[in-house]
């Protein structure tokens, strides 16, 4: 490896098995969250995504308590929270914010309880930080098939309802006029979002999971107006951000305070990408 390349990519980057796993899982998750996220941004449901992630923290911590993989906890509690939000009327434009907030408040309360019980029941205190802020380098190889399957389910759901979902998201009135089941589509979408958020929570942590859901998608929607292109673009931005974040985190072992968290790099890169897309507008967008 040439010297200047070695300065950018620290030696052993590609041969480390945990890095390889992180790169693969990160890319899978970025594809799913990018696809789902485009609709989150179009539908203005960032808060719901944020709430699902935060509530997922209670699932991750309860999974630690009973001793199963945190991903199961994330998925279980996110799907349950999505169902409750749907029940108390998150789909209506008015009051949607409030319904999300109420569920989030109660969910955060549960997270407080489970994390507290987790701290007093086990001697390790690392679980709290791992759940909240993630640690992609510590993933187990056995999570890879699970991530792939759950990601495929989320993508499959989006694919099946793609056209009606797009119409309903852009104009609910038009969708209702065409006799589309607006509420059912919304519920299915919320379910797909719960899965995407759970996957994101495993990689960059429960309370940061919104970054991957919203950031790349919002960036993509600044660059292009076409939903199909936006999805591809969001997935690419997501993968780029994820891989660059992993690379920087790997490099940071030689920096002061060895080993900066991957989540920090990912979140910062997401924000930079979004601001860049806002500051440098696509030339074609000028027309409107």
């Amino acid at each position, binding site marked *: 490896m040439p010297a200047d390349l070695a300065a950018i990519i620290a030696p052993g980057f590609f041969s480390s098995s945990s890095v390889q796993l992180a790169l693969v899982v990160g890319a899978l998750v970025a594809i799913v969250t990018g696809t789902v996220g485009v609709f989150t941004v179009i539908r203005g449901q960032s808060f719901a995504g*944020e709430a699902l992630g935060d509530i997922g923290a209670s699932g991750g911590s309860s999974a630690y308590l009973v001793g199963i993989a945190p991903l199961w906890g994330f998925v279980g509690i996110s799907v349950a929270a999505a169902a409750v939000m749907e029940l108390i009327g998150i789909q209506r434009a008015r009051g949607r914010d409030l319904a999300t907030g109420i569920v989030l408040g109660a969910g955060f309360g549960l997270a407080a309880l489970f994390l507290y019980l987790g701290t007093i029941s086990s001697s390790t205190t690392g679980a709290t930080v791992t759940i909240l802020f993630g640690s992609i380098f510590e993933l187990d190889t056995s999570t890879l098939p699970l991530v792939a399957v759950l990601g495929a389910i989320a993508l499959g759901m989006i694919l099946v309802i793609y056209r009606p979902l797009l119409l309903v998201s852009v104009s609910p009135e038009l969708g209702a006029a065409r006799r589309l089941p607006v509420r059912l589509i919304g519920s299915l979408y919320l379910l797909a979002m719960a899965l995407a958020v759970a996957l994101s929570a495993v990689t960059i942590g429960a309370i940061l999971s919104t970054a991957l859901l919203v950031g790349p998608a919002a960036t993509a929607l600044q660059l292009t107006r076409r939903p199909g292109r936006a999805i591809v673009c969001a997935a690419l931005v997501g993968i780029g951000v994820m891989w660059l974040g992993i690379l920087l985190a790997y490099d940071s072992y030689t920096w002061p305070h060895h080993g900066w968290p991957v989540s920090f790099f990912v979140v910062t890169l997401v924000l930079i990408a*979004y601001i860049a897309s806002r500051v440098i507008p696509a030339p074609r967008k000028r027309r409107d």
Partner: protein
Amino acid sequence: MFSGFMVNAWIVATIVAVVGGAVGFFVVLRGSAFVAHAIPNGSFAGAAAASLIGINTLIGLGVFAFGSALGIGLLGRRGRHDVATALTLVFALGLGALFLSFTVEYAPEIYSLLFGEVLGISANQLGPTIVLAAVCLVVLALLYRPLLLSSTLPDSAHARGIPPYAAELAFLILVALATTMTVPVVGTALIFSLMIGPPAAARAFTTRPLTAVALSVAIAVAVAWAAIALSYQTNWPVGFYVGVISAASYAAGRIWTYARRHRVAARGEATKNGGESPRFARPIRSSSTGSAGS
């Protein structure tokens, strides 16, 4: 339960509940639950930074709360408001994760920042909390009328010289102020619950703004007291009880609204001609409460 260090807990929780309930009225009125979630959570990074470089937690919280408020205000000015809020929030939290990774012993500290340690409040935290609460309530009283007008009728407020953007920024700073004072004592999750549940419940019971503020404060104080008492008895975290009881108060409000609507509907069926028809009862009611149509 009412002796020694617990006295501080009762006093601080009451102050926090009063401020949370009052500011929360505008949070619910403007439909800004996400902002009320994002600013306290974002300021968490400030507390982590303060403990890293060894300065007063309040300063770190204040800087990050106002930074988050300005970030949301600036990024959301032209563009999607919820995206701006989400990205500002996660960036602040990411910074918090970085600062935490620099410190050595962090798990209990991060936990108490997120979920509060109202039972462990020392006497020297009382002073700053009371001063900040007073400032917050005075600012709220000064902004009350323009903010109420701007939240309910943005166009009419604009015509009277209150631009929506200025009102939004003033509101964000108000939330930041409330956050700075409350986070070190009760944690980010708790203040968020107090800002959403009680005001939402209050709005179900009354349509008058001032009555709603008063009721919201009363419910918030009741929630905080119940949470402390239960937490003292069971040793479970305060944040858990505040979150759950706040949600329960909102559920009670929803049930009340539902029951009353059915009563009105039943009366409307009985009298057919007299009185207002139930169909119109809702819109009139909600417009006098003034739902912020975003």
